[in-house]
């Protein structure tokens, strides 16, 4: 009963926060609804961006990886994200400046102004295609957590509708401002819960050093890499592939665009991008080490997490909470993962709804007024969520692997983005060809992997080094080829009217 009360309180609390934003006039115009009228301060920006990226995967998935693979997991969502402070600044400084000046409200806007209509139409389609499996993974995660927390009182199928219904409600009500405030409150909550669980787990065996010593004595391979005689499982190529995919994918998802447009000040934007990596290092290092420390929690925990079932290692977070915290606190710790999944859904759904309304619909109907766009954005939110819930009804949908692959697919748009802001010779043809090639190759590797070895084969083909790909993984090969296609395609074609016209804005001397 207590668990149902927690989940209900989180959902109702989120609606109230969003409604408060709505009452403060957050949704008076399209600019207000989609980019919060560029009014968000840096505290909200930091936690909103953080929460919109850190999903249930950051807790269950990463602690499970830590449990299986050891300290190499630190290169998946922690130290590898620190470069985002620079990367986001370089690649999104002009997103902030030109976006504010031109009242951009979607991810397709910079691509459209720089490369023309076809690219503006392509971007929301690619983003949506990459986002759906990622969203389905979150929706399914929410339903599973709800079912487990309530011990089946809210079954999986009901959980699929329960939380997403609230997400739709408060996104429709509050727009970007409501979403940002909900993300901030929930992001703070799950960060605090990770801290509490980390200290509880380490305290179980007399502190951090003694816990790590216990694990190392029995499982030294968790402390090494697949290098020399260390005996670890993660090779340098595998680490590089995962680290680059997650970091570059993070640059290309809709959230940094939407948060750049929403920033009230340059300082807010800079604090947001600097703090993101640092907070990830602290918080996700803790979830990684909770997973590693899982080996010290006794056979009842280890046995359940090593059961020969897909994804059983991902249970280590919940098992560690149940073992080291009182029942009510363990429920709150798991609820932290529930809120993490919800906030990711918010960020990705809202970004996609904004893309569909402001890019695709506005192309079909250029004279659409802001009220129409806001209404359509709300329909898109409901529609995207409905599609995700329908797909998630099938429990066997292999979405966890596809969710990681989504980052790889998104990453190929980094070349058109870089070219838009930094290379005058970039053309629409090069941008479209690179995007289609990169996405197409990722999908081809996916199918190739499925044919060769089912969904695990697909995951391996894209994320693990392959002998038939010169020791690289499918993501890196797609990424490199997309880059080559972008440069060659641009050099072989001439700048069209749109590209020429855009140079005056994108390369204005005031932006130097």
């Amino acid at each position, binding site marked *: 009963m207590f668990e149902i009360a927690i989940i209900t309180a989180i959902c109702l609390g989120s609606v109230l926060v969003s409604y408060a934003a709505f009452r403060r006039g957050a949704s*008076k*115009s*399209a*600019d207000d609804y989609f980019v919060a009228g560029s009014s968000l301060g840096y505290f909200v920006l930091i936690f909103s961006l953080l929460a919109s990226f850190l999903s249930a995967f950051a807790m269950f998935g990463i602690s499970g990886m830590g449990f299986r693979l050891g*300290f190499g997991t*630190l*290169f998946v969502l*922690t*130290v*590898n994200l*620190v*470069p985002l*402070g*620079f*990367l986001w*600044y370089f690649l999104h*400084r002009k997103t*902030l*400046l*030109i976006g*504010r*000046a*031109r*009242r951009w409200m979607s991810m397709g806007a910079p691509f459209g102004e720089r490369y023309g209509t076809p690219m503006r139409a392509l971007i929301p389609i690619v983003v949506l295609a990459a986002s759906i499996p990622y969203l389905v993974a979150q929706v399914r995660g929410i339903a599973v957590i709800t079912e487990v927390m309530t011990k089946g009182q809210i079954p999986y199928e009901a959980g699929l509708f329960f939380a997403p219904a609230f997400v739709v409600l408060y996104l429709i009500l509050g727009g970007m401002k409501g979403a940002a405030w909900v993300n901030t409150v929930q992001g703070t909550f799950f960060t605090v819960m990770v801290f509490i669980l980390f200290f509880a787990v380490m305290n179980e065996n007399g502190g*951090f*050093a003694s816990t*790590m*010593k216990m694990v*190392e004595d029995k499982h030294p391979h968790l*402390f*090494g*890499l697949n*290098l*020399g005689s*260390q005996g670890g499982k993660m090779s*340098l190529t595998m*680490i*590089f592939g995962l*680290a*680059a995919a997650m*970091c570059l994918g993070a640059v290309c998802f809709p959230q940094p665009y939407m948060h750049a447009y929403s920033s009230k*000040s*340059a*300082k807010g934007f*800079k604090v947001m*991008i*600097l703090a993101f*990596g*640092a907070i990830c*290092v602290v918080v996700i290092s803790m979830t990684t080490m909770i997973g590693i420390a899982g080996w010290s929690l006794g056979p009842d925990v280890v046995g359940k997490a090593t059961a020969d079932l897909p994804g059983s290692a991902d249970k280590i977070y919940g098992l560690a909470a149940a073992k080291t915290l009182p029942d009510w606190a363990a429920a709150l710790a798991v609820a932290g993962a529930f809120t993490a999944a919800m906030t990711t859904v918010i960020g990705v759904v809202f970004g996609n709804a904004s893309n569909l309304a402001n890019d695709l619909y506005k192309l079909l109907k250029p004279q659409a*007024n*802001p*009220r129409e766009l806001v209404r359509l954005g709300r329909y898109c939110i409901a529609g995207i969520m409905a599609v995700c819930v329908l797909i998630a009804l099938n429990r066997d949908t292999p979405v966890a692997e596809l969710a990681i692959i989504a980052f790889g697919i998104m990453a190929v748009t980094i070349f058109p983005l870089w070219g838009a802001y930094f290379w005058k010779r970039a053309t629409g043809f090069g941008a479209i060809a690179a995007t289609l090639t990169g996405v197409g190759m990722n999908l081809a590797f996916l199918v190739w992997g499925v044919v060769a070895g089912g969904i695990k084969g697909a995951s391996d083909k894209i994320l693990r080094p392959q002998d038939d790909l010169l020791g690289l993984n499918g993501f890196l090969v797609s990424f490199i080829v997309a880059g080559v296609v972008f440069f060659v395609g641009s050099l072989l074609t001439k700048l069209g009217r749109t590209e020429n016209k855009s140079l*005056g*804005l994108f390369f*204005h001397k*005031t*932006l130097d």
Partner: protein
Amino acid sequence: MKENNRSILMRAYVIAFLVLTSLCWCPWAYGFVTGRALAIPTWAVLAYVFAAVLFVLEWVFLFVSGLAVDDENLPRILSELESLGTDAAADAKEDQDV
């Protein structure tokens, strides 16, 4: 800051950023280091150290170096960009009219 100095400083930041990013994305230069420090693998400690150095460098670049955009210049930049075209102004006006 003179344009030439600014350009040199920018290149230095970019080179440092590229080197540190490569170290944060892959322990190619220190993954072979064995032993333990602070109860975790020494190579993991080194990864944290490189991440910390990169974080400080980013902070200096964004808030101290004078190379990054700041709020003093923001209104001027926005005003110059807004004056480039009439489309944006028309869109904004339409937005306010809702």
